[in-house]
């Protein structure tokens, strides 16, 4: 009973908030509703018994990723409404509907197969976080390390792209030559 109430509440809220994200014209509204929708999705994870995944969703998505978006938004003009041309909206709706139906069929196809069985069942006597740790650090150790290296590479790339020479333009030729002249003047 409570599970049903929680599921329908969270799913309706998530769908509504993500619809606002996708169809809103204001950047700030889109970002805020995306963050709120991710909180609701972590609620769904808690309902599903994946406690650790829910906490990670809250910390990484709602905390880190959304903070990164908020910082990046300082570079852009967030208050102005975004004007977008959509010449053929009907075709987009048709394609989106068709692809959605296809995806639902793909997702639901394995339900009717009998071949699915658990490879790593939850360890009896251990909580969700403990079982996740045991499986992650034994069976999935190599992908875990690869993910760590990937995150390091992404961090370096982010710093190089966004942080280097913040006070001047990276790409425009004129600005760089102006900068050189300014530096020579200082000497």
């Amino acid at each position: 009973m409570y599970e049903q109430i929680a599921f329908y509440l969270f799913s309706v809220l998530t769908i509504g908030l993500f619809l606002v994200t996708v169809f809103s014209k204001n950047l700030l509204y889109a970002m805020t509703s995306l963050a709120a929708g991710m909180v609701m999705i972590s609620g769904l994870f808690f309902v599903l018994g994946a406690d650790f995944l829910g906490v990670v969703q809250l910390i990484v998505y709602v905390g880190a990723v959304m903070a990164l978006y908020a910082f990046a938004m300082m570079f852009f003009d967030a208050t102005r409404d975004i004007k977008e041309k959509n010449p053929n909206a009907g075709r987009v709706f048709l394609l989106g509907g068709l692809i959605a139906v296809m995806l639902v069929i793909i997702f639901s196809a394995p339900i009717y197969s009998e071949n699915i069985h658990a490879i790593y069942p939850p360890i009896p006597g251990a909580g969700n976080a403990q079982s996740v740790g045991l499986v992650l650090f034994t069976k999935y150790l190599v992908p875990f390390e690869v993910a760590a290296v990937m995150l390091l590479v992404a961090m370096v790339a982010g710093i190089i792209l966004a942080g280097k020479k913040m006070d001047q333009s990276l790409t425009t030729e004129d600005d760089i030559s102006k900068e050189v002249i300014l530096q020579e003047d200082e000497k």
Partner: protein
Amino acid sequence: MIGLNHYLILSGLLFAIGLMGVMRRKNLLMLFFATEVMLNAANIAFAATSHYYGDLTGQMFAFFIIAVAASEVAVGLGLLIVLYKKYGSLDLDGLTTMKG
């Protein structure tokens, strides 16, 4: 009673919303938001499968999806900032300089 199908249908709906956003958005930052919606939909499907089949593999894949999403955001936002400095806007239709 809530079954696996409920969660998969929810995931499919959210994925369709994200896909619709990817197809109709012309602003690059909004496009990023729509991809986040799609990644979250996949995460829901993984967590639900993991719960209803009593297997932890789905949760592992969801963790790796979160890691991939975090690195994607870091690199993508850096690229967006460089792009904004160069063109002054994030409109996709303006980025047709490679047209032959």
